């Protein structure tokens, strides 16, 4: 094997691929390596941790073909130390790969690649949708923060994607709050449901390019295919709870506020929240404002009032402020609407003029 790659592309590729390699050292050495395949199909870099895997196509000059596996952390360290201009040449002889860039030259011991598992690419997937990579990337990365960290319920530690009637609905919840985003699709025929483990979604989002991506899936795994190559992930094999049941149909109080106002007041009040991060919100329809209040026995207390358009009746609710601020990251709208179903019942946050988002957060006990 003998290849040369532009340094910038090499660094970029190594960073993307290395994330998919196994980080625990106790397993197979091949799993913590990057496999470089040079053949008629071009230069490819592969890595997998058996949960998710990547097969990335890298642009470069191909002198001779071959396969080699190199420890991922080592390649990552090398990539971090390279300057941006010029090219990197990799030459393989025996069990040594010599990597030369500019004036430098290093010999790297390779790992036996026979143990490197095959990455299961769906050959003729039943279902496939196409959507812009940039959109998918923000969708996955913003929703992962709303999933549960615990692995006790694997379905809650996953992002739920449901494709129906030309709309992709993505949902994440950790049972305290729930985020739902809807994205219209171009091809309307496909239907299906998939549960992507949140842990994998983070890695996938990092590696996705901006251009259109085809997402194909079957019962057990899914693939993200684009010009850059293929990323596969195992799917969580569980049933997602019927979350629609918990969304309240009616509302007792509704408020529309400027997103900026909401963000600033929440931030300032949150300073005085207690160990439970509790912030109280009062809907006041008479004075047409909503007020934030937080009390901490050690620090003191704080209240903030912002003008709002309030309908319905007076209502007091308490929330974990972090669950409230998380909603802001999901919508870009100038104003947001809050609708509360009553004391002890969840609050729904939407972006005004942005029908795609629904964010539901459960109140804390008073």
């Amino acid at each position, binding site marked *: 094997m003998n290849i040369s790659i532009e340094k910038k592309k090499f660094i970029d590729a190594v960073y993307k691929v290395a994330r998919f390699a196994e980080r625990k050292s106790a*397993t197979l050495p091949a*799993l913590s390596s990057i496999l470089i395949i040079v053949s008629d199909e071009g230069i490819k870099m592969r890595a997998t941790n058996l*949960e998710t895997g990547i097969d990335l196509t890298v642009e470069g000059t191909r002198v001779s073909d071959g396969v080699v596996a190199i420890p991922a952390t080592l390649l990552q360290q090398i990539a971090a130390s390279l300057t941006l201009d010029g090219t990197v040449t990799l030459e393989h002889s025996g069990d040594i790969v010599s990597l030369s860039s500019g004036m430098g030259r290093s010999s790297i011991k390779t790992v036996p690649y026979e143990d490197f598992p095959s990455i299961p690419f769906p050959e003729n997937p039943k279902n496939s949708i196409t959507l812009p990579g940039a959109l998918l990337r923000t969708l996955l990365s913003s929703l992962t923060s709303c999933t549960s960290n615990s692995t006790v319920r694997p379905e809650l530690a996953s992002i739920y994607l449901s494709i129906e009637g030309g709309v992709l609905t993505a949902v994440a919840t950790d049972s305290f709050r729930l985020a739902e985003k809807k994205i219209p699709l171009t091809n309307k025929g496909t239907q299906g449901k998939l549960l992507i483990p949140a842990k994998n979604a983070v890695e996938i989002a990092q590696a996705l390019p901006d251009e259109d991506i085809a997402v194909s899936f079957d019962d057990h795994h899914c693939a993200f295919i684009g010009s850059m190559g293929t990323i596969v992930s195992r799917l969580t*094999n569980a049933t997602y709870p019927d979350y629609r049941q918990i969304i309240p149909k009616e509302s007792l109080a509704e408020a529309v506020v400027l997103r900026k106002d909401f963000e600033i007041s929440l931030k300032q009040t949150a300073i005085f929240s207690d160990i439970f991060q509790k912030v109280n919100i009062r809907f006041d329809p008479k004075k047409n404002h909503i007020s934030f209040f937080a009390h901490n026995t050690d620090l003191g207390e704080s209240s903030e009032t912002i003008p709002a358009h309030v309908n319905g009746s007076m209502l007091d609710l308490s929330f974990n402020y972090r669950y409230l601020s998380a909603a802001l990251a999901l919508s870009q709208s100038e104003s947001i609407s809050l609708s509360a179903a009553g004391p002890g019942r969840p609050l729904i946050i939407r972006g005004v003029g942005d029908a795609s988002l629904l964010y539901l957060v459960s109140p804390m006990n008073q």
Partner: protein
Amino acid sequence: MDRKNPRELWEYVLTQVELSISPANFNTWFRNSFIVKIDDEGVVYIGVPSQFFKDWYLKKFHALLLKIVRGISYEFRNIEYLIVKDDRRKVVKESKPVRGVIELPLHEFYINKSDNLNPRYTFDTFIVGSFNALAHTAAQATLQRPGISYNPLFIYGATGRGKTHLIQAIGNQFKKQYPGRKAFYLTSEKFAVDYTDSVQAGTANRFKDKYRQYDLLIMDDVQFLSKKEKTQEELFHLFNALYDTNKQIVFSSDRPPVAIPDITERLKGRLASGMAVDIGEPDTESRMAIIKKKAAAHGIMLSDEVVEYVACSITGSIRELEGMVNTIICHAQVKGSPPDIAEIRQSLRSFMRPQKNVSVKNVVDKVAEFYGIDEESIYEKTRRREVVRPRQVIMYLLREDFNISYPTIGTKLGGRDHTTVIHSCEKIKREVVVDTELAKEIQNIRTLLV
């Protein structure tokens, strides 16, 4: 092995696979898999976590697995791979059997600062036997009418007999019975130190006031006041002050008031002026009761056999007995079950007095040397006074320390009758109590013999 039992079959397969592939491979690929079912057609379904595994199994391990199952029986026709639901391969957490962990509670060591009393010592935990019945009754009577019935109450007995327990129990009971009245416990050594400190700091008056305010004063181990004349004088005054105002005083010591050496006569008289009771050596039944109660307090039931063994193996000190029981309890907690007699023997070996195997000749030599007489004369039939006494001491030591039978001692020491030996032993035993000189001699000889 039951061929139809998926679990057993899989375990067998794993042992075979482990031999043929590398440990890293085995851990990566086989840790999370299992046989889901075996159908009637002879197809074995192996459950794997994801597509990665399914592909790799088909590619790499299919032939191997098939060979292994076929090796067991030709009934197995094929192997299929299934991707199983996440919750089905959840690792079953190993649940450790929660042992009845009985920690040594810290409050056992807790001491009340204001009165120095340890709340652990109460009458509830005090075991009354014939050896301490009198002392217990006296203590109860004192509590009925403090300062009037028996004032002072003087309790004496050898170390580890429960003196401290009894007098502290008086203090704790007093607090309970007469809330609002003040009790105070201290050792005579603490009293002496306190006094010296106050003299040094020039606050002797405050010292006097401090001790005069108590309604019940308990002083432990007064024998240590011997030779401390000024402290004795201070105690004398304190005694008078308390006694005159009908405040109860309780003393403890390892010997009767009259036997405390180097203590002024007027104090000696006052110590003996109330009630002086002794606590004797606990009998076997009492020791058994103590062991049972101690063990029960820690939630452990010991068999009668064990209790009897422990009670018989230590005589005298209850403190040593407690130590033994604690050892047993500790062993029981570590092992999770009460130990049996064999284990007890093993674990209590360290508590046993070392079995000394010293020849009679050796003892005779040492004693003769100690008294500066010819060792031959010990064996002779002479009745010279300087020989008789050492001879009796030898008999006493052989009997007491080495448990040699009376007839044997007699035969070894020149063919004497065993009644002679018995008489000698009894005589020395009697004398050693009153004759401190003799006691000191025997103590010295014992150190020579070790």
